[in-house]
């Protein structure tokens, strides 16, 4: 009887382990990426305040932006601080990106990889997801060691669908248990590693766990560090269409630069 019970428990443990392993391995890389994206943008319409701090030789610089996202492909970034940049806007629709200068009332087309401030590119702020701009080239399961410990992760290797993407290649580590993005390394067309990003903080908003801090290390700029903090993360009912039309930026600039 004792042997039978041990055998049953062993079988049960094996079955439990196998089913759990099968459950994880049954996730496709695309599903893994989607779940990771939901940790950055859980709603189709949302807004947040982004504060960017950069440590440079001349001291720490601070910039604040209000960011609106709609339907994955529309992003409006309103510059709030420093004061002399207030009223400027960044508009991203699909893969097209414009920088609107309040002084000239003119949107100028730019590329996502251009530097916004410190180690952060325009695309880092205007895009929360990866699947629109990148395809999954390969995936593997691996351990990730960071300052806060070791995590079991999926490592996805992403390649840009077009040269218009912010980066040409991305290595993205996603926590196996929680689906949180933990780290990414981004590469330029030349193959050189440009930046490392650590997704260091998450918070619960409306019962959803959302990324609220990213640390950037710029390997092209003496490993300069920048920290992007997201606050006032909110699900929005309706963000008006006028926020995402190039020709209405003059009016939107007056409206959103609070």
């Amino acid at each position, binding site marked *: 009887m004792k042997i039978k019970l041990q055998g049953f428990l062993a079988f049960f443990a094996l079955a439990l382990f196998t089913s759990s392993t099968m459950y994880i391995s049954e996730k496709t890389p695309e599903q893994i990426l989607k779940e990771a994206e939901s940790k950055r943008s859980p709603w189709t319409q949302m807004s947040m305040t982004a504060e960017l701090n950069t440590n440079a030789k001349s001291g720490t*610089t601070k910039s604040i932006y209000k960011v609106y996202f709609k339907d994955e492909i529309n992003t409006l970034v309103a510059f709030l601080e*420093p*004061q*002399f*940049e*207030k*009223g400027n806007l960044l508009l991203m629709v699909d893969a*097209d990106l414009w920088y609107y200068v*309040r*002084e*000239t*009332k*003119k949107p100028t*087309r*730019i*590329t996502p*990889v*251009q*530097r916004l401030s410190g180690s952060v590119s325009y695309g880092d702020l205007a895009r929360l997801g990866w699947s629109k701009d990148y395809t999954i080239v390969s995936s593997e399961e691996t351990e990730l060691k960071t300052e806060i410990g070791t995590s079991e992760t999926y490592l996805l290797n992403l390649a840009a669908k*077009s*040269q*218009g993407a912010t980066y040409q290649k991305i290595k993205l580590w996603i926590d196996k248990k929680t689906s949180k993005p933990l780290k990414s390394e981004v590469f330029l067309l030349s193959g050189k590693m440009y930046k490392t990003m650590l997704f260091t903080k998450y918070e619960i908003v409306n019962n959803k766990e959302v990324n609220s801090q990213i640390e950037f290390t710029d390997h092209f700029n003496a490993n300069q560090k920048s920290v992007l903090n997201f606050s006032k993360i909110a699900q929005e009912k309706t963000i*008006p*269409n*006028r926020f995402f*039309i*190039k*020709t*209405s930026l*003059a*009016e939107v*600039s*007056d*409206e959103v*630069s*609070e």
Partner: protein
Amino acid sequence: MRLVNKARPHIVFSIAAFIILSGLSVQAQTSKYISEVEYNTINKGWLNPQNIQLLPYINVNNIFLYNKSFKIWKGSLNGNLRFSLLNQLSKDEVNKYDVNDYKIRFDPNELYYQKSFNNFTLGIGRKRIKWGVGYVSSPTDIVSNPPSPTDPSDRLFQIKGSDLFQASYIGSKSQYDIYLMPKTNVNDLYFKNHSAAFRYFTNVHPFDISLVGRIDLDGTYQAGFNQTVAIGEKLELHSDAILSSKSNALYPPDFSTNKELSYRILAGTNWSPNQNYNIVLEYFHISEGYSANHWLLLQNTIEYLEAMRAIETFEPTATSTMKKIYNSNVFPLRKDFIFGRLLRNNLFKNAELEWITFACINDLGSLNRLGIYYKFQSRFNLYFQYQFLLNTDKSSFNLYGFEDTWRLGLKISF
């Protein structure tokens, strides 16, 4: 010193007081202060005899642009107020300007209230409207003036808005705008009558397209379109065209207007080969520009008037006629032009280099400008510009008052 136009500041101060009393929240704020000195080598060519345009040798310009938005009644009140002290220090090599002539000018370039709800935006007041897609002088900028090719960045904030009522509807991929412009002193700079303008914008991937039109109460009209298209990440092509029922250009020998339909076309490209370079190249055709025959007639007229100025009894009339010619003709004068701008970012840390050439294809004259801009401590921008004319002898560029200009300035953002 005195403040020109005392009534307007009174209105502005009243609005400011009201806003402060109402405890309204301040929104966008990008005020600027510019101080610059420029030295002109006066053009003493045969088309600009004895500095007929009275261009000063040394200029000191001080400009403060007060730019603020206030949240009010769930809309926003926006001001773009320009205070300028343009010190013309030296009339010529010997004579200085009278210090009593120095005036602080006040120009409310923009002052408007607007409110958005759902997909509508309504506005009233003085507002600068940018519809054109060209880097400079877009033909479809038919509500407010575009910047001049000689100062494409409008560095001294000289462009004023128009007094208007605005109603806009913005859909997911399209926008409709209607503007009504009553006859006011400021609108007189652009239109001579009550006027209405409209625009329809849409995106037909990959093209951004606008159809525009304007009709004045006297029946004169303008109609046109513009488009932009991105090719890859580095190249943008744009075009901009307008048809006008009436042109204000004056033609020699009697300097009357031409009643035929006229049109303006711009075609250009904006190319960013990498992060460090940006190149803009644009071609303009102005149908009402002077033909070779008109240009010859104008030169003969100026030569004749200059000869008359040597005769004492004819001098006042001849001088006044010449000044009228110089003041009434809007440059550029001929039909076909090329504008080019090269921007080199990161020339060295926080420094940019800019080269601008504005050239006439018909007579090969050109205006060229080298600019170096150095930004420091985020809010300070020190700039140096040197502009000069080339091949001007038989060119309409010879009508400019200078041969070259050196300029040094400081721009501070608040």
